[in-house]
Structure formats: C-alpha cells, structure tokens
C-alpha cells in the first residue's frame, strides 16, 4: 500500500473532508440560488406577459383549436378547389424561394469576404480585423424587418427590399460562422502559396477556400433554410411572395380560408422539404470531411 500512496497526504483526510463539505455547501447554495432566480424569472415573466396580453393564457388555451378548426373545416368543405389554389399560389411561393436563394448567395459571398478579412492569420489588413468584426456584428444584429421596411419606403414594395434585407443579415451571420471555421483552417498551405509569390486573393482562393468549402456550404444551406422562413415573414409585412398572400387570405377570413389552407400547405411543405434535403446534404458534407 505504501507505494500506492506515495505523494499523498500532507493534508489530512479531515481537512479534505471539511473543505469538500464547504465546497458542497457553497455549490448547493449557488445552484439553489440559480434555480430559484430562474424559476422566479420564468414565473414572473410569464405572469407579466399574461397580464399584458389581451387574452389570458388559461382562458385562451381552451380556444386554441378554434382558428385552425375554422380554417380546416372550410378547407375540407372546399377540398376540391385545393389543387387549383395551390397552383394559383405557386408563383408566389417561387418568389419567396427566389428571395431566399438570391439573398443566401449574395449573403454567403459577403460572408466569405467578411470572414476572410476578419480572421486572424488570413486578413489582408490585420489592423482592420476589429473593424470588419464590428461590421459583421452590426449586420447580424439588425433584424431583417428593419432594413426591409426602410427599403420599401425608398424602393417601393416587392421582392428586392426583402432580398437586400435578408442578404445583409445573412452576410453578417455567415461572416461570423465562416470566420470561426477559417480560424481553424490550416495555415500551412497558405504559407506554402505565399512562398511561391502568390497574391492575397490567390492564397485565399487556392489555399483557404478548398479547406473550408464543405463547412461553408453546409452553413450556407442551413442559412438558406432559415432565409426561406425569413422571406415568408417579410412578405407578411409587405415584401411580396407567399407571406403577402397568406396575410391577405388570413385577413379575409371565412370564405377565403380555403386559400389560406392552400398557402399554408405550400409554405409548410416547402419548409419541411428544404429542411430535410438540406439536413441530409449537410450531414453528408460534414461526414465526408471527417473521414
């Protein structure tokens, strides 16, 4: 046994025990307090939200099926029209998807540039890294709706304001994610290219992009998914596409609930479709890399 406990115990077991007990007490206190604060925040928060809402939670919860019930029953009655309505609103859906696609492409390009400019070891102007970081922080922080509404004021309604708004936000968000990826990129190839006299652009395009492309694409796909939702929401506040149609159909109320249902089916299946496709493809990309 002696050889086992070499190096042990200048400290007696008793002191260790009491020190550990003290630590346990402290930890219990802290976790207890954290839990308490969290519970209090949740309960109080819920209470405030409940009191500031027109309808209370407990009254409303019973009613929760009323609206979908109305929509569904009317849609069911007129189910024969649904295919025609789906076809009617398909172009609006395409517009929504287009907004998402274009803004993802533009945003991803912006994100690549921002990330390369704000990653240590890669940046062309290392002194300006904080600047580009702040720029992407701010672009990320602005909710799309803000830019969209301002642009609608200047450019008029339609897909372009939404596209620009989403693209700006996407560039900021992807800029951050991308730079996390490129931070982990291997700098050896970059140095190798530098030693041949390659320019900064060549170093980035040939040395960094091939390494990080799978991750970039994977993040961009995720973003595309998110952007479809965003573009639908922006439509709801006036930027065209399926969101605009949905808002009108819902506002009209009974008589047009079949349209609402048709749009809902379109939107829902689109979101689910792209969600599934992209998550499958993303898994493949990142797995392929792990090998």
């Amino acid at each position, binding site marked *: 046994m002696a*050889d086992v406990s070499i190096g042990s*115990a200048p*400290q007696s*077991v008793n002191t*260790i025990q009491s020190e*550990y*007990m003290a630590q346990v007490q402290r930890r*219990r206190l802290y976790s207890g307090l954290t839990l308490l604060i969290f519970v209090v925040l949740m309960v109080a928060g819920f209470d405030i939200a409940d009191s500031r809402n027109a309808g209370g939670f407990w009254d409303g919860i019973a009613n929760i099926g009323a609206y979908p019930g109305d929509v569904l029953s009317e849609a069911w009655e007129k189910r024969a029209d649904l295919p025609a309505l789906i076809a009617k609103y398909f172009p609006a859906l395409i517009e929504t998807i287009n907004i998402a696609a274009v803004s993802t492409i533009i945003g991803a390009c912006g994100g690549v540039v921002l990330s390369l400019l704000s990653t240590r070891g890669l940046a062309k102007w290392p002194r300006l890294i904080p600047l580009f970081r702040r720029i992407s922080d701010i672009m990320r922080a602005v909710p799309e709706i803000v830019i969209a509404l301002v642009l609608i004021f200047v450019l008029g309604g339609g897909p372009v304001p939404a596209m620009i708004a989403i693209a700006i936000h996407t560039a900021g968000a992807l800029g951050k994610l991308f730079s996390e990826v490129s931070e982990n990129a291997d700098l050896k190839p970059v140095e190798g290219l530098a030693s041949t006299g390659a320019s900064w652009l060549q170093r980035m395009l040939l040395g960094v992009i091939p390494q990080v492309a799978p991750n970039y694409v994977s993040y961009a796909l995720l973003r595309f998914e998110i952007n479809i939702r965003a573009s639908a929401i922006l439509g709801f506040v006036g930027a065209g596409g399926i969101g605009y149609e949905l808002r009108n159909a819902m506002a009209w109320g009974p008589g047009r609930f079949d349209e609402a249902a048709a749009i809902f089916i379109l939107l829902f299946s689109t979101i689910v479709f792209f969600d599934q496709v992209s998550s499958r493809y993303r898994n493949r990309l990142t797995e392929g890399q792990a090998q």
Partner: protein
Amino acid sequence: MLEISKLTKRFGENVAVDAATFFVEQPTMIGIIGRSGAGKSTLLRMLNRLSDATEGTVTFDGEDVTALKGAARRNWQSRCAMIFQQFNLVPRMDVVSNVLHGTLNRRSTLATMFNLYPQADIHKAIEILDRLGIAEQAPKRAEALSGGQQQRVAIARALMQDPKIILADEPIASLDPMNAQVVMQSLRDIHEQDGRMVIANLHTLDTARRYCDRVIGMRDGRIVFDGTPQQLTTGAARDIYGAGADFSEAATSTEIETLDRSKEYV
C-alpha cells in the same frame, strides 16, 4: 458462493460466451484471460446484469441472479460492482460525486437528482479516496485526472457500493505500466484486506500470474483453462491464445521490464 452454470450469450449467429461454467467457493481473486473477442467482457457484463444471458444461470449465495428483475436486479448490481477499461466515470463531475454514484441504489431518486447525499456518505467517499491515495483530487473534475487516477476513482466508486464482488473489465488496458501496477495493487489490497471477491479480465498473462489466485482462460467463448497461476504454463497459454509454436509470452505483456525484474510473481 458464486456459481456460474452453462452461461451462454448469443449475438445473432455469433456465440460470444458458450456454456461457461465455474464455481467459486470463497472470496478469491480471479483473473480471466483470453484474446480479444474471446468473450471476457460479455461474461462480466452478464454477471453484473448489464446484459442478459441467453441461457444458463448465475447463482450467488443460493440466489438466482439471472432471474432478477427491476429493483432486485439493480440491488444485485449494487452488490456486484464493476470497473471498466475506459473508467466510465462522469468526466464533468467532481471526483467525490463520481464516487458517490456508488450509493445511488440506496438513496431516493429525488434526493440524488439534486445531488443531496448524506454527509456521512461524503466523508466515507473521501476516506475511500484516501485509502487509494487520491484524496487531494477530491474536489477536481474527473476529466482533469490522469488515467491511473481515474481508474482509482472508479475503484473508489466500486468500494462505495460496498459490494460482495468486484468485477473489473480490463482495468489496466488503458494505463501505462506504472499506473497499471498501482491499480492492480489496489485491487489486490481490497481483496486481501476486505475479503471481497475480485474478478478481473486481463489482457496480459504476467499480470494475471502475479496478482491472481486463480486464472480462467477463455477462447472463442468457451472456458478452456481453469487453475492456479502455477498451472498456467506456456503451453496452456498457447492453447488459450490459439497461438502457434512461435508464441512468446512477451507478446501479451505490457509491463516495463525494469519493474518486472525487481519483483517476484505471486
């Protein structure tokens, strides 16, 4: 005391353990050897009831362990501690909490959910750690410890269970020779001082010879050797490992020669 009778485990076509039968009369330190895939781990897992036997029985002090269900099964597990090759600790929790997991079966679910263990248990856990020479590590996270220290924490957890049997599945395979020695010595001490039965799967012949009272050899799921370390000749070892005449014992040894040279086999 412990009787294993025709214990069999099948994975589909594959027979991992094939009618293993042996009897242990009194607390003994047993080493199970055999090459990779021989069924050692599977056997131990059936003893602890981590997995169910396909056929056969395990009887301990007259109680049919294989038939236990639910709470009774968990109670058996608490009496039959298990130590793993990869330690299987909760790395993000501190050492003492890990040791206290040995008491889970005895304590109410609600209290443990909030990490509320009795003070006596906590003190006992630290005493056990002290016995294993790692009391100073008590407040650290398990992941911050070296492999040898982690394995000793696992042993402490096992001791905390106050078990009749300690099962150890290749307890030293992930350790360097120095730590391996410390861990094996701890197990031996526990066996000798507390009189607990210890069954350890071992990759290496020399360890088995040195620390165990009895060695069981397995090959392709079957028990092909059962005897004292003295009876484990190179010929017997060749049978167990299914090796040809070129078999050299060193191939299964992981001990540093210098350590070996200064000690005698048990």
